[in-house]
């Protein structure tokens, strides 16, 4: 257990803003100015603009979906669903918020709706999370950097356990953690995406961190199953 609780090595040379940009899915990002240009072009009837716009966002949408549902197949479906919704709603997008915020809000709504349906469908036990359908990339889903082999294993185990703990959280709590830690959004943007005030964002984030810690402790106390090994 001590080994599993080993302190993770913080990512090297990682700035606040680079956190999300480090993802390979961020490669296609475009500047806000270019976004506006494409939006205007789309509204002006340029048929190619929408393709470029969606291509620029597909990585980000997919990463949010994957981090929310942690299933590649579901994430892909949700990405397509989100893109269709973006496509449908683009004409009515009033530019009161940033396009990126709006796209993330649409994505998050799709994910939360999916999780709600899934929760209704899920009659079986929590085995679905811990069992064969559990994380598609458990040990390798954390960046390990230049670490020694034993530390890499420890950190991978820790990361895997943490992701399982994340899965067990309430979807709203998971959403706030995903947006903050995995999408690197500011509190204000999280508030816009989830439609809650700033104070609520902060308190929900803190409660989510507490709940994640508690779930992680439970995970650590849980005997290892064959699937975990």
């Amino acid at each position, binding site marked *: 257990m001590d080994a599993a*609780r080993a*302190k*993770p090595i*913080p*990512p090297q040379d*990682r700035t606040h803003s680079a*956190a999300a940009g480090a*993802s*390979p*899915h961020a490669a296609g990002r475009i500047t806000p100015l270019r976004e506006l240009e494409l939006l205007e072009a*789309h509204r002006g*009837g340029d*048929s*190619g603009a*929408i*393709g470029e716009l*969606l*291509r620029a966002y*597909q*990585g980000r949408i*997919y*990463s949010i979906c*994957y*981090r929310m549902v942690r299933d*590649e197949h579901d*994430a*892909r479906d949700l*990405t*397509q669903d989100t*893109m*269709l*919704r973006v*496509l*449908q*709603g683009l*004409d*009515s997008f009033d530019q009161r918020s940033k396009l990126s915020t709006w796209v993330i809000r649409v994505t998050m709504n799709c994910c939360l709706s999916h999780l709600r349906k899934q929760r209704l469908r899920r009659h079986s036990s929590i085995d679905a999370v811990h069992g064969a359908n559990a994380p*598609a*990339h458990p040990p390798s*889903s*954390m*960046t390990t950097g230049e670490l020694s082999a034993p530390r890499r294993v420890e*950190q991978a185990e820790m*990361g895997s356990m*943490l*992701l399982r703990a*994340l899965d067990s959280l309430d979807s709203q709590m998971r959403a706030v*953690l995903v947006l903050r*830690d*995995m999408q*690197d959004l500011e509190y204000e943007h999280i508030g816009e995406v989830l439609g809650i005030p700033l104070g609520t964002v*902060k*308190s929900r*984030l*803190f409660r989510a*961190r*507490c709940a*994640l*810690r508690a779930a*992680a402790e439970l995970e650590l106390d849980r005997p290892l199953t064959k699937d975990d090994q």
Partner: protein
Amino acid sequence: MFENLDEAQLLALVEGELDSQEAESLRQRLAGDPEASAVIERMIDDRALLRCSEVPDLPRDILGELEPQMVRPMLLGPSPADLRRRHRRPQRRWRRYGAMAAAVVAFGILAGVWATITGVFSIGVQPGVRPPMHAESSSNDQLPPDLRPPPETDKLVLAGDNDRRTRPPPSAAIVLPKPPSSTIGDAPSTAIPVGGEGPLEPPKTGDNRGPAADEILLAADFALVLEAGDLASAQETLQQLVTELGPRAALVRNFSYEEARRLEQEWLLSRVRRPGTDPAEVTASVNGRNDTIAGRRNLRELADRARRQLVVRQRNRSDTDAPLSEQLYGPKELAPSLEQQLEFSDRGAAYTISVPASQLSRVLARLQVDQRHSTVLQMLRNVDRKSSGEQGESPLHWLSDYPQVLVAARRLQDRRDGVILLPVVIEQPRTR
């Protein structure tokens, strides 16, 4: 655990938003509670770990994986906002019906009470109503038999029935001509399973009329792309669809330049067989025309020539406007002009279906996706784009077309009285 501590400050510590002095001060306060301190430290670790997490590689081109049929409902179907409104509407309606029903019941009760008090609904002779016929029997007996009224039954009659009894029977039944049965009604029961929905409902009044001589024909800028394994199956599907649409619909196989070329050659070759013709001259003429065709120059002239020749061949027919191509189904008034057919076929559309504008949505909804067919709307390609598309067009083409198609389709649908000439492109199913 964190009773005496400010949540916002703890969060700021975890998020790394405090300066070193503030963080140190908070850590000192936390030192009094080792358990809380440990939890906060682990939260900081958790945050660092989560920020390191990766996601698997994105599928190569997820946009390309979007199946065309996913766009079809988007083109036709209501937006999520519309759907929400639609879901709200029945609730409002039921609320309104409920209020109306309550009002009717209350009125009924009040009327019942009032009637009980005043005795309005008593059975028998009503005020102002003639007395029953048997009261006049003595005077009737004195009348000749043919002038006597018919004998009365003993049933009790309410006031209103007196009027009915005295009203003379209709002298002769007026037989109205039967309305012409719609094509929908006559459609064969073996509907081709083109989609998830059943055959179209019979068209509303107005769509059921036959085509007028001056129908407004609206050529669409976009095409219906029908994926079908073989041409016969696609044609069968379209024919069935047109049958279901009624008399204001038609299906035409578009006349093409290739067809014109063939007819032209047949005509020229027939001249060779004529006595007194120099075969070398005719052969040179044929070759020259082939060159012209190969260069795609003067094709309209060629088509016109072919058309004229066909008319000459069909001298026995007075109908010189008969379309050159084989008109598969429907009245010829709804067929696109020869030039229009040529343009459609030149841009890849093998067929044209003529559809009342008011029926466009239903037609597209009818062509649901199933295992055999997949339909999508896309803008008509021009010649160059068509040739490039044949070499492997991006699957995104329909997606980029979406805004244009949507606008064009809505514009056509607004012309409710017109008939849309919708070109149909038949495509082999893509291997998925």
